[in-house]
């Protein structure tokens, strides 16, 4: 053990030794993992961004628009569609494995795309903000999206099931037809009232419990399109049960559930989607509590009431269009 008791080497020798040791290791040939350039290199387009409807899309005929593009990287993309007159938008987001191939059936994120409308299509890549592509497609007709749920009223029906009901504070309550500004089709309901009341008329929509079989509070959504030009306007949505099973909705005998939707006074259509779990037992006026719960097998009617957010005296009103129930997700 005498070598262990001798003086250690000088510090310079140690340092040189350590530096040398640094290059002794189990380094592998080549590189680890996929080639970074194939993931995050310069984005190049191998196929131009285009769609298959150069003469416009006829959604009424069941057409769909197929967008396609080819590029050299597996990149994340966003394809944004914007209606030039309606302001409607729709977006596809995904991770393209060197290609984009998506179908558009006329879906919309907020309000409907209109007929005879140019839709701008913008393809963007979040990791490559300088690389984007533009195209446009002409929409000849609006798509029929009623298969997404249970359509209650679009005001285009020849034999409508809805009715409208006015009261002492109602100034006007009508279905406006041949309207170019309808959010869907060419008709909608307009209601205006004045005074210090909170009920200026209502759209009454009968419901058949058979249509609600299998649904639940959390997965049933009411989707309604509203527009107003009157500050403080709101729509009170009322859900009526036939709690005693007598075939009638009778105040003081049957339960009512309510939720209130405030409407922006910007004269712009907005889609409001609410789950039925938002409805609360309404004990105002003569209303009663039977079991305090929404019973799907006793649902009888749904009212969209023209109302106000408070109780102040004034003029209030709103437009209602395309009321549809959807299940599992909002419209």
């Amino acid at each position, binding site marked *: 053990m005498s070598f262990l008791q001798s003086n250690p080497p000088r510090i310079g020798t140690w340092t040189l030794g350590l*530096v040398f040791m640094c290059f002794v290791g189990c380094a592998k040939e080549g590189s*680890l*993992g996929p080639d970074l350039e194939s993931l995050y290199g310069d984005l190049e387009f191998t196929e131009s961004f285009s769609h298959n409807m150069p003469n416009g899309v006829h959604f009424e005929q069941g057409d769909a628009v197929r967008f396609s593009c080819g590029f050299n990287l597996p990149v994340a993309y966003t394809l944004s569609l914007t209606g030039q007159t309606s302001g409607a938008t729709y977006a596809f987001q995904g991770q393209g494995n060197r290609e984009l191939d998506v179908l558009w059936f006329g879906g919309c994120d907020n309000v409907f795309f209109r007929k005879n409308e140019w839709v701008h299509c913008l393809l963007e890549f979040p990791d490559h903000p300088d690389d984007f592509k533009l195209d446009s497609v002409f929409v000849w007709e609006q798509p029929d999206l009623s298969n997404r749920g249970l359509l209650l009223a679009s005001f285009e029906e020849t034999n409508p099931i809805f009715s409208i009901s006015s009261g002492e504070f109602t100034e006007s309550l009508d279905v406006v037809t041949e309207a170019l500004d309808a959010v869907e089709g060419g008709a909608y309901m307009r209601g205006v009232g004045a005074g210090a009341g909170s009920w200026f008329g209502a759209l009454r929509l009968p419901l058949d419990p058979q249509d609600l079989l299998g649904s639940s509070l959390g997965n049933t959504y009411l989707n309604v399109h509203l527009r107003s030009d009157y500050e403080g306007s709101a729509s009170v949505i009322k859900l009526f049960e036939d709690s005693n099973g007598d075939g009638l909705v009778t105040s003081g005998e049957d339960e009512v559930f309510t939720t209130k939707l405030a409407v922006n006074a910007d004269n712009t259509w907005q889609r409001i989607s609410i789950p039925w779990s938002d409805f609360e037992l309404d004990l105002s006026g003569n209303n009663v509590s039977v079991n305090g719960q929404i019973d799907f097998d006793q649902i009888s009617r749904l009212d969209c009431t023209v109302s106000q957010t408070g109780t102040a005296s004034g003029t209030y009103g709103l437009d209602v269009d395309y009321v549809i129930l959807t299940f599992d997700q909002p419209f």
Partner: protein
Amino acid sequence: MLRAWMLSVICIPLAASAQYPSFELGGLARGVSDVGFLTAEDTLARDVNVESHAIYDLALRGKITSKAEIYTELRLGTNLALFDTSASYAQVRRVLLSGQLTPRWNYEIGDIDVVGSPFTIWNSNAEGAVRESALFSQWRKLQNYENFSESNSWRLRGAKFEGNWLMKNGGQLKTSNFVSRVQASDEVLRPDVVFMGSTLSWEKNNVLAALSGQNFASLGKTVPDGVGRHVANLGGEVKWKGEEWLWHAEFGGSTATTLGLDGLPNAPNSPTEGGYWNVETQFDFGASWTASASARSVSDTYMAPAAQTKRLLFDAAPSSFAQIGNGAWNRPLSQGDLLTAPYVPRGSRPWNRAIQRELMTFDPRYGTANPYGMATPNRRGLEMELEHGKAEEPWSVIARLFALQDLTPEGTLTRRNYVGYAIAGHFDLAALWMGNRSLNMHGGMQSQRAQRPETVLDPVDLTSSVFDFGVDWAVGENLQIGYGAKRISSQGLEYIAVRDINFEVTGFDRTTLDVTDMLHACGVIWKINNRTELTTQWQKWFLRDALQGHDGSISKVLFLFQSKF
């Protein structure tokens, strides 16, 4: 019943000794209140968040016979939220039976502490602190205590046996062996996982040589149709210590069952193998200076579950005000969240206790050079350190410098380079004048930078830094006023390797950061007696993510009462 028991605990003497059995009682009492406030601009989220708890840890050490000693820590706690017993709980924090089997063999059974080297079994320190203020460090100690991470050892449940033999030539032979059940089988899908290890060392004069092995094994037979999986490590070390010099070399390797995407062993199975080595030297000079230098290399597939498992869960959400900026910012964990994470029995918190095979998520804001400590796969390089003085001396300083590199390039043919430094120290200004009112300044700064030039890609260039500063002024014999500041920042771009369960790089996450967290604390520490203190402090956190355009601030008022007995 509980009251009677408490009375008996208070009334019995704190230590009663006899030959056998003899008992000692000790413990800790703590009360905590944490009140958080959002700024007035935040109106959507909850504006006030209140957390509180009180705990009493009673430690009992009983020497029953010469062969058996028990140690238990019993916890009684309440969240201080309700004036009834539903918010109170009792639990056992630790049970340990130990003793001497024979004159040469000792044993421990129960909650054992196991530690090896930074390459084999090591509970690495949490990121984000360089000699931080006492106001922050008292909460870090609290969290380390709560999460059994007060040292670099892992708290495991199992048994440990240690042997010691004196040889005729003056040498000493030691062995330490442990086995722990890391995961219990559910007898359906989840198998039993055991972690076992053994060390054999020989020491004579100033020379030590040791061999060690560990196996992190998943026992396939504990579930139907299960197949065993292993991560086995074998290593050795040699150490020589002279009067002024210390020389230490360590080397080892791992072999692991290669697993498929379904988590089952590939068939036929060729194991995943990796290795490491580390050489370091240390020498003392001058009055109290110590310098050290080391070189190391860790291969990309070297697996050491007990050294690469992180102490923190960075993918956890903050426990309070997880969304700020009027609900627009799902903010990540900040240092403030880590320090003030509430203690909830069996609740989730961002502190990890479970050793695992997979590499855990890390937060790149703390740098990408050493996210898994010295056992970080695919690194090689040099480290140097210079140290002077201890905490009890008038001043001390410690400086560290490292230069690392990818052992094998990742994703390109060029290696990333990492350089970093850390400097920390303290100075008692009272040393400049007569008197006993200390004015202690301490702090530190650490910074690291990862770089890799690129021709086509955006180059890797990520800078991360941690700054700590604290002042403690003893205004009275028992009263101390303190201020602390902490700044964590990171800017730049990095491609973070995504590794599968076999440590194979399967992809990269492109990460760009421009984040800054600034924390201020000021408070008063009242030392009621040698073992009891009360601290009240106010903290303000300023959090900013410039790339996403988010910022916000959170205020905290913290009360901490601690008494050790």
